[in-house]
């Protein structure tokens, strides 16, 4: 069976710099897949090539077995790929409800599933714990809650693959725990979640499989325990802290 998302041999060059070097990874349905690495490792660049904001120098991206490498970002989104951003890309002129409604309405239009998008919006916002802020303008929210709005907006497109770029950044401990639970719930519903995160504790707790990226290359793969014990990872990225978490 094909993985929900396959990035095959992706290379991304900017002039003479290689940001991503022949990276292959899979994100399978029903699992939370982690992608970790130090700053500048190429994680966000890889995300951008997967969702189509960047065209890779070489390599291919498959969604449920279909090659989407030449598709524009909006067409990939319509094939079930959603994402959040490391630097917030919320629509600051709109409220929380409107941010999610725009995505839900678009989904209803291209998905033609007959559902009233507005009826789903409140449930989605509730699922990320923002019911009390539903009519607040998003530029008035603290960073942590704004990240949750981005997740809600991505969920409104009913994705089969969800790319999350540092979603726990700015969240407090309680909110991070809630996020972890939400990710596990989404995976249990059959979604493929690809998580980029600096909060190693969260990654180790929720991820079924982890890729470690350094200088644009995959240096280790495996479960949380395997990655935690990997010497290359310990040396290149986390050092001794990894073993104690």
């Amino acid at each position, binding site marked *: 069976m094909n993985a929900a998302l396959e990035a095959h041999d992706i290379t991304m060059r900017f002039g003479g710099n290689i940001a991503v070097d022949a990276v292959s990874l899979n994100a399978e349905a029903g699992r939370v897949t982690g992608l970790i690495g130090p700053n500048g490792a190429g994680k966000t660049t890889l995300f*951008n090539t997967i*969702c*189509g*904001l*960047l065209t890779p120098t070489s390599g291919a991206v498959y969604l449920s077995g279909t090659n989407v490498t030449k598709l*524009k*970002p*909006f067409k990939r*989104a*319509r094939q079930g*790929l*959603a*994402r959040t*951003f*490391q*630097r*917030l*890309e*919320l*629509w*600051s*002129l*709109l409220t929380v409800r*409107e*941010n999610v*409604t*725009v*995505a839900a*309405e*678009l*989904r209803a239009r*291209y998905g033609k599933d007959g559902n009233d998008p507005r009826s789903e919006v409140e449930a989605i916002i509730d699922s990320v714990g923002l019911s009390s802020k539903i009519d607040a*303008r998003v*530029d008035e929210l603290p960073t*942590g809650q704004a990240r949750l709005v981005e997740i809600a*907006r*991505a969920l*409104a*497109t009913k994705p089969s693959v969800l790319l999350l770029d540092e979603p726990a950044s700015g*969240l*407090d*401990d*309680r*909110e991070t725990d809630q996020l972890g639970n939400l990710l596990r719930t989404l995976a249990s519903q059959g979604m493929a979640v690809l998580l980029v995160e600096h909060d190693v504790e969260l990654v180790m707790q929720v991820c079924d499989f982890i890729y470690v990226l350094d200088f644009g290359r995959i240096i280790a793969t495996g479960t949380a325990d395997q990655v935690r014990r990997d010497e290359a990872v310990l040396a290149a990225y986390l050092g001794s802290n990894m073993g104690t978490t």
Partner: protein
Amino acid sequence: MHDFLSFTITGLALGAVYAIGASGLVLTYTTTGIFNFSHGAIGMLGAFCYWEFRFAMGWPAWLALIVVLFVLAPLFGALLELVVFRGLQGTSEAVKLVVTVSLLFSMIGLANWIWKPGARAATPFFGNDHGFTIAGVPVRWFEATRFLCAIAVAGLLWYLLYRTRIGVAMRASVDDRPLASLNGARPDRSAMWAWAIGCMLAALAGVLLLGDINLDPTLFALLIVNSYAAAIFGRLRNLPATFLGAGALGLLVAYLSGYLPTSSVYWSTFAPASPVIVLFIVLLALPSSRLRAHGVTRAREFFPMPTWRGVAMFSAIVVGGTFLALPLITNSNAISASKLFAYSIVALSLVPLIGLAGQVSLAQFSLAGIGAVAFANLGKGGSPMGLVWAIVFSMIVGALIALPALRLSGIYLALATAAFAVFMDEWVWQLPPFHIFGTHETVSFFGTGSISVPALNLFGLHFDTEKKQMVLGAILFVLAAALVVWIRRSSMGRRLLAMKDSEAACATVGMNLTSTKLAVFAISAGIAGLGGAYLGIVNSTTTSSDWSFTLGLPIFMLGVVGGIGRVGGALFAGVSFAALQAMPAWPLFQSRFLHFDTWYSNLSTTTPGFMGVALGRNPNGAAADMREGFEPILKSRVVTGSVGVFVALAWLIAWRRHSGWDFVIGITIVLLAAAGAATGILAKKMRAATAHEPKPIPIEWAGIDRPFTLADREAFDRELGYTEVVVTVGSET
């Protein structure tokens, strides 16, 4: 061969002037990040100053040159940097655009004010009568001087940017202004140098153009605008490519002027328009701007969701006010009022486009012209189908303009739309009548001077008098306003606002940006076309000058000043522009007391520009401030009732005296007094309500101005994200 060589020399000399103009533009853009739309106007002012010193005052050429190029132009540039451009750091592209377009407009107005229109003899400052020959082709020294000046400018700019401390500081400032500051550079000083040198180069280009064309402010300012195409060759950053582009452009214009048959109107008007066509093509050929996730910052502007109740009230006031005004005003004032609605409808077209979608267009007045031409040609006998065709044709052309918008953004899009508008002015509007696809149907533009536009005949209701047309204008405006509000409230409105904030995020939730942009450009063009058709009806005959690029700029500026995201902002633009146009005819301004007549006719042409410069930084617009000021009136029943009574009284007095002015002055006084009274009453009520409440002490003063409580501690922990800890600490204490 002789002709070819002759055209080549002319082209290279012209290209040299373009290169000098464009290099100043590139210098200021690369060092400050501001594309100076008024660059051409600065060159024009330089040329006029030189003319004043050299020909009006009789100074020697060398002295006039030194004073203009090395004293006035750099000082003007430094002053602009200090007063205008320094405050634009960190503002959006649209605000920068409005301010520089406003400067362009106010400088043209200022030149018209200082130097009365008329023919001015001006010869090049050097070597007009002497020269030499190349392969038998005579070359005058001033043509060679242009070329040598361009080479000297190229060399000096290279030396400045790469071999001097100030040049390195200039380049560092644009890369990262704060970082440059931390490393000891002084970005403000670098920017001041850049503007001083940029203005000097603009003035040099202006002076070098003397002798080629009549010294007319608009013509001169727009001729230097041709050099923008050269700057785009270098993508506004690359000086060598800019110089190459300028040379190619100069040669193209010279060859087209020389070889195209002058007997054909189609071709004789094509050569002057060729630089803007090149600009448009080069912009289309630019690599598509990549979708970038750049992180959305807090929005400075806020346009609240309009309610249908508010729209109903607004419509009632506009239409009701129009009917109330009918018995009070003269026919000539009814024409001014009708134009007010026409301009407001055109300004309204900017609300979905710029206010909601964030797409800049400087060609709305040209689209309005298409509406007028379509109605004049297809609305035979005033048929309402003419209005439908006006909207449809404008929408089709609007969608075509959107083609570059699909690839470009920001300043490039503004330039593309400006190029389209100038292309319409220079070429399309000048075409003679022609038949469509071999049929006998004739389409007339303005090649024969003017075309007549019939009055609308709506199913037997003939809008053939000034006052009927005024009512028609009010109704069309409120209908168009309702359409804009509907868009804002619909899913499309949300999508447009989302696109304005982050196109990258839109794409990643499945939004097709291409169709969304096409739709908003077409809708906006349709509204502009409606406004144009109506303005044509009001004018009854129309010429190309009614739809010129420069006439459309104040509508754009006033729309932004009024608040580009609101219907009220569009009405503000329409009222201001119509008032400024009608101002010289008002009784007060016809008085020769203190030369009011001259002062105010000049002021009417420069005011929109100065308003744009002063208020372009207020993204919410004047309409929001006015609404805030007058809203208290509706919150106090006593004041609302009193206003109603006083307005009725003012109307009765005006009606008895047959004076619309009494009514206007009366309600202005009543509304201002009522706003003041209502604000006072509300403030008094609020003071009374809060008089017995303890004054809240900010949490930062806890432990200093009052005891530190557990609630404070919990609040601190909550803010810091330690909610779990709070419970533990709280239970222990």
